[in-house]
């Protein structure tokens, strides 16, 4: 097991380095010029432009820029935003925290409900409940999230007035203590619902087909033949085997959770990474963009690492295949 973890960690570190290089290069391939964005539409005198270019090191050859970038990155310095002059790292991390606050609970909720739904659907394979759950998850999967978000705003914020339409806290009376938590939850409810519905559908679809497949495996007959209740067969034998493909899907989606909510964040004006991303693109804010790329990519690598480790925990055959004895 230790060798398996070691191999995965080494691989993850190499991936992060590669991603940093790619992230650096990609922003330089984007059309447009950061100096123009910085000085605005105003026709800047050439000497000012070259001064700014020199200040930000943009006059250096690309490999030198890359080297400086990597060295600074290793020191935790991702540069400063062209736009707000704030350090990129703290800017990006603060926004990432807000995004995760929305995404992680929604994804966990979606995974738990999705798997539970799938097990129930598989148990009643081909009957009413199964068809109903399949239909619900198909609808959830197909609804565009920006449409659902706006409909929810119209119903619950505009017409009923139960929930706030946007933001993360009330600006006038944020409250304190339990009041602040309740205020947050009221803001959290609608965007979280949007995200949960989508991922619930994603997880439930994969989980259902996986559970149905497992339900027809031979070992299920052995479990039944012992005299176990169908409940025990499902939750103890079918679920654990059926989870293996589901873990891939959940891990994959966790990896994209930092950037997976851009539309939802835009609809509900949730001050997360997605919003920062859109602003940064509009302003060609290179350092912020590469910071977001880097962070999002590291999140994907970490999620994949966690997925690999979870695989090994669930499926003992993976540990053997990877060479490490449990």
């Amino acid at each position, binding site marked *: 097991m230790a060798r398996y973890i070691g191999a995965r960690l080494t691989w993850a570190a190499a991936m992060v380095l590669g991603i940093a290089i790619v992230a650096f290069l990609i922003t330089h391939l984007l059309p447009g010029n950061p100096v123009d964005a910085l000085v605005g539409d105003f026709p800047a005198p050439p000497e000012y432009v070259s001064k700014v270019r020199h200040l930000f090191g943009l006059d250096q050859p690309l490999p030198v820029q890359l080297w400086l970038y990597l060295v600074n990155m290793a020191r935790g310095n991702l540069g400063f935003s062209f736009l707000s002059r704030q350090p990129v790292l703290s800017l990006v991390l603060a926004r990432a925290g807000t995004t995760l606050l929305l995404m992680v609970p929604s994804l966990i909720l979606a995974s738990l409900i999705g798997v539970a739904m799938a097990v129930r659907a598989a148990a009643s394979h*081909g009957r009413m409940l199964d068809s109903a759950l399949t239909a619900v998850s198909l609808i959830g999967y197909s609804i565009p999230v920006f449409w659902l978000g706006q409909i929810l705003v119209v119903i619950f914020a505009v017409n009923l007035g139960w929930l706030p339409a946007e933001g993360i806290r009330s600006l006038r009376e944020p409250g304190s203590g339990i009041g602040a938590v309740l205020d947050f939850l009221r803001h959290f409810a609608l965007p979280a619902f949007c995200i949960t519905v989508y991922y619930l559908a994603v997880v439930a679809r994969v989980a259902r087909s996986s559970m149905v497949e497992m339900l027809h*495996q*031979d*070992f299920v*007959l*052995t*479990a*039944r*033949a*012992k*005299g*176990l*209740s*169908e409940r025990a067969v499902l939750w*103890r*034998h079918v679920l*654990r*085997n059926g989870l293996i493909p589901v873990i891939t899907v959940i891990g994959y989606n966790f990896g994209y959770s930092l950037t997976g909510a851009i539309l939802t964040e835009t609809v509900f004006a949730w001050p997360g990474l997605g919003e920062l991303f859109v602003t940064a693109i509009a302003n060609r804010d290179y350092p912020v963009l590469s910071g977001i790329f880097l962070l999002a990519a590291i999140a994907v690598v970490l999620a994949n690492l966690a997925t690999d480790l979870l695989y090994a925990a*669930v*499926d*003992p*055959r993976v540990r*053997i295949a990877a060479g490490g004895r449990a």
Partner: protein
Amino acid sequence: MTGAAGGGAILEVHALHVTYESAGRAVHAVQDASLSVAEGEAVGIAGESGCGKSTLARVLLGLVPAGIAHIRNGRIAIGGVDVTGFAGRDWEQVRGQPVAIVFQDPLSFLNPVMRVGDQIGEAVRRHDSAAAVPARSAELVDLVRLQRSVLRRYPHELSGGMRQRVMLAIALGCRPRLLVADEPTTALDATTEAEILALLRELRRELGMAMLLISHDLGVLRWNCDRIYIMYAGHTVESGATAEVLSRPAHPYTRGLAGAARLARLPDGHFAMIGGDVPRLERPARLCPFLSRCDAAMARCREAMPPALPAGANGHQARCWLIAPAHREAI
């Protein structure tokens, strides 16, 4: 064709008819099977692939897919209890105790992500107290002649023979009065097969349980069963004491099967074999299912299905007009 067993039958199957129905198509996998197993008795079922022997084994425990498999006719009684109409949770009172089953391929029939000890313990827990699980699991592993360290292993870490011993330990963990063994050695090599069969004999002697051994291999059945049933196309066509049936087969199908199993040579030097193909099972047979392949077929065979007729000593019976006292007799 209920066999020799009188009182104390752990299993009685009478005129069982099982179909698989899906999308408007039906397969009559078992059409007219009757058998009985007395307490402590070893009974064999022989037949080729697709003759319905595995369906028969599984239907005894309700392990056929619900909604697709249907018992159309007949009766199954286990320990005197009629289980024919059982559904859902009813089966939990039969499965494991009094009837346990081991299957053909011990790898696919073991849960790949559960430790062997947990899989055995689960069977024990179902029929004993939780406190008894560790001691009883160790005892079971000893019983099937495995080292106790296998309890911590996963199925893929064991050899084929070890896995089948684990399957046996799971089955025995339920303290069955009848062990159904569905081709338990078919997936194993010859040496391991011999070891598992020897183990089965010892266990039966030690535990006094009855066994229903299903195999396509007459050699396996000959040395392990008191009585034997021959199945063909969903019908039990012949039954009796194993030695009697195999040495003096009455049904032409049994004769062909025994000849093929012995690698008997015909006068022209070719191996004896049964010509033709097994009948299709989309429609239930109205006449003898072996009719199209039988070289002793006569007019009577095309008129009516033969009943079980006495064919020799010790309850030897066969469903064939050849052994009817007078061919002209009414059914």
